[in-house]
């Protein structure tokens, strides 16, 4: 079966005055219908740029997708023109952003912002779009949706705004929903509500989800497949159980150790990863994680490892076998 979305060797760079920023460096992954993919990594590792590249929303200039293919239902999105791409955005692939406070236009009513896509993509009349918008608002759990149609974003709380954003993204029933850290700006109880909402909607509408986060805890109960990114590279990928029960990349290991756990003593200090992610303007020749890696061997500083399988669907990019601590 051909996958719904296949990203092959995608590379995106930004040409700035300071030099070229190597934001995404040849990543590949596939997404099946109805599947949920988690993309994990710390800030500035290319998670958002990789999905914005899929949507072709990288500002050009300075950004440029320099290589790769993004095949959606057999069609390479990178070869489409802007008008064709507009038909994909919203209708086939939609996106929810991190901060619901800034993602809604403050001077337009939420009703208008949601119905806009319905009128543009689905050819609905004002009346139909209005009725559908109220339905969508109810679907995402906005109380008194019909009354709130005319309200402005500032009249909603953060969690409610994120629900509005989700309603907006789902308005045209996309096959893929990209959620770019949609819960980062919300407090914990609201986070849980939003995650449950997306899960419920995913199962009900049968759409695929790409969930980007720096929080491995969120991904565990949500995704089937997980990609761990570092400095624009995929360093580990696998089924969600592979990543949590049998992490093989030193970076994934370190990330998991830095998570607080209920079964560990509260006296214990959380582990941190020393150092900072590399400057994407000036990537080291070897493995980008090598300078911070406790398993580092000589080879790591000279050669950047390719992804290679360590299990059925489990791949890592590392010269070292962390189970033995020796070079493979």
């Amino acid at each position, binding site marked *: 079966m051909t996958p719904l979305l296949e990203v092959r060797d995608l590379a995106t760079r930004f040409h700035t005055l300071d030099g070229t920023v190597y934001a995404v460096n040849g990543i590949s992954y596939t997404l099946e219908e109805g599947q949920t993919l988690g993309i994990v990594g710390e800030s500035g590792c290319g998670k958002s740029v990789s999905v914005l590249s899929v949507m072709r929303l990288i500002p050009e*200039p300075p950004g440029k997708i320099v290589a790769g293919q993004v095949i959606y239902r057999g069609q390479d999105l990178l070869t489409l023109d802007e008008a064709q791409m507009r038909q994909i955005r919203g209708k086939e692939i939609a996106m929810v952003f991190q*901060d619901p406070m800034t993602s809604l236009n403050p001077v337009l009513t939420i009703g208008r912002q949601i119905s806009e896509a319905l009128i543009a993509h689905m050819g609905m009349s004002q009346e139909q779009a209005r009725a559908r918008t109220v339905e969508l608002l109810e679907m995402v759990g906005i109380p008194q949706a019909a009354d709130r149609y005319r309200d402005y974003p500032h009249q909603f709380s953060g969690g409610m705004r994120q629900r509005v954003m989700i309603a907006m993204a789902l308005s045209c029933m996309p096959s893929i929903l990209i959620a770019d850290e949609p819960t980062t700006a919300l407090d914990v109880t609201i986070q849980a509500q939003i995650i449950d909402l997306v899960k419920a909607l995913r199962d009900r509408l049968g759409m695929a989800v790409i969930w980007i986060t720096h929080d491995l805890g969120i991904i565990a109960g949500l995704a089937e497949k997980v990609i761990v990114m570092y400095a624009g590279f995929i360093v580990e990928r696998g089924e969600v159980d592979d990543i949590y029960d049998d992490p093989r990349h030193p970076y994934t290991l370190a990330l998991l150790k830095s998570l607080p756990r209920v079964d560990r003593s509260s006296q214990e200090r959380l582990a941190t990863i020393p150092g900072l992610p590399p400057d994407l303007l000036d990537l080291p020749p070897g493995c980008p994680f090598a300078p911070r890696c406790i398993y580092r061997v000589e080879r790591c500083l000279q050669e950047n490892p390719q992804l290679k399988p360590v299990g059925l669907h489990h791949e890592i990019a590392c010269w070292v076998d962390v189970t033995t601590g020796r070079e493979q």
Partner: protein
Amino acid sequence: METTGESLALGVSGEAEPPPLSPRQLIWRRFRRHKMAVAGIFMLIFLILYSVVGALFVSESYANYTDTTKRLQPPSAEHPFGTDTVGRDILARTIYGGQISLLIGLFAVLVETVVGVLIGAIAGYYGGAIDSILMRFTEAMFNIPQLFLLLVMAKFFAGKIPTIQLLGRTFSGSVIVIILILGLTSWMYLARIVRADFLSLKEREFILAARTIGTSNLEIIVQHILPNSMAPIIVSATLGVASAILSEAYISFLGLGVQPPTATWGNMLDGAYNYIDSAPWLWIFPGTLIVLTVLAINFVGDGLRDALDPRTLAA
């Protein structure tokens, strides 16, 4: 955001915050607090009624009727504002002149706003080479003194546009010339303001969010960014009306503006120059009307500026 005790009964939800007022209600509340601006609004309404309703009582032909036997008569029961150098009734002429002056002010600003917003929006949204070209052009226009440009263009276009009939009235072609000249020499400030606003607004996340649902560039410019920069545009347009009326008065005073017999408050001052002492009613009435209009509009503009400025929301 302002959340006052005046919560509305409607739209109660499961949320903790009381439903705040809509942006329009907020703006109106802040505007009302500005006493001078409210006075300005009333003054403007009065002036518009003066020139519109007044026209129901005197005919235009009466306003243009010359009777040299009655020239330079001081205010009397028959001619409450006196008569001018060729015996026309000044009251009737201020009524019809007011219509033309206000019309010129409004339409000149319309031209100014359309050109300014168009150039500013395109330059700010697309950036790059388009921005550079449009902004260099704007700067070039800035560097030509507006007064000089006004006089040259007025002289150049004078008489080239025929009179037109509209709503059963005849407008001298010079009215249209003046509207275009005033509009086309005053859009640069607005273009710069709009460009600056667009430059920052287009980077906002809600614009990216709009793009992810397939919104086109045109829709983003018109439906998403423009409503966000309405405040400076409205203020600039309001104040623009006042300056257009003043500029019209200025070039008409120099005899290059709207040509007689069509009256404007500006060209009524033209003939008054030689009679400043001997027949002050020639300039007092149209002069006062100009000053009142400009003052009223400026007060309204100040009030709007405060009311529409999002940074004064807490007030």
